[in-house]
């Protein structure tokens, strides 16, 4: 497998979603390619940063409007 092949499969590799033979080929490439190893690590890290990012709290006015709407609907349309 060459560098282009690694990049094409990088997402599946990170997700553990690769055929074992392809995975082995990819890892063999990583053993001697520093650039690809770095790109795999940084892509994995990018996903981690994204997963770890916390939602900002709902602005109070948005939250109040949401709950007002919900109450109105629930009270008018009890199920």
């Amino acid at each position, binding site marked *: 497998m060459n560098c282009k092949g690694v*990049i094409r499969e990088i*997402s*599946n590799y*990170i997700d553990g979603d690769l055929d074992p033979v392809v995975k082995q080929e990819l890892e063999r490439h990583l053993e001697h390619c520093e650039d690809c190893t770095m790109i795999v690590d940084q892509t994995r890290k*990018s996903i981690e940063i*994204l997963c770890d990012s916390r*939602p900002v*709290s*709902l602005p109070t006015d948005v939250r109040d409007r949401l709950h007002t709407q919900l109450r109105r609907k629930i009270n008018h349309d009890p*199920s």
Partner: protein
Amino acid sequence: MTTPKPHPLPSSVVRDDEPLLVASARSGNASAFEELVGRYEDKIFRLTSNITGNREDAEDAMQDAFLKAYAHLKDFHGESRFYTWLVRIAANEALMRLRKRRPNHFSLDQPIAGDSDLMPRELDEWRPNPEQLYAKSEIDKIVSSFVDQLEDEYRIVLVLRDVEELSTQETADALGISLSAVKSRLLRARLKLREKLSRHFRQGALN
């Protein structure tokens, strides 16, 4: 009904009492439903904001998503996590609004031609680590602004898969597209995000 302050909850963690709450809400207990809303409103608003990129649309989509969820609670039979079900409804509401604003602007299921855009350009190490350069809240802001800059078709898939942590199959189901369409967009989205972060972290290290 009370309006408890929501506590952020990772989507992959389901609180033990959730099935009971859902059952209670299904039988008409409005405060049980509002408790569920309180648990997920921050995350659902983040999702609708991430998809629409517009505060007004994000709020409308979130409101309609919770109202629809309430109206269709009887159709939720626990085949998936309650949150995943909610995300599907909210993603649909948000997508409808995005499509209205940008008709014919993006396609989630057209094949992507060629792979010439895949090869990385930024090949510098992240040294020092981003965590050594920035506070957590700053990193959150940086990554969020880069996600906003991604093209619609990449951003939407990335958000469902790597922010909301839906599986590839759940993402495909939520968007009504094929697994291969999800994977090809996810690959590009992740590589583009790495590229943007890399450029930023390199500059950060130089400053």
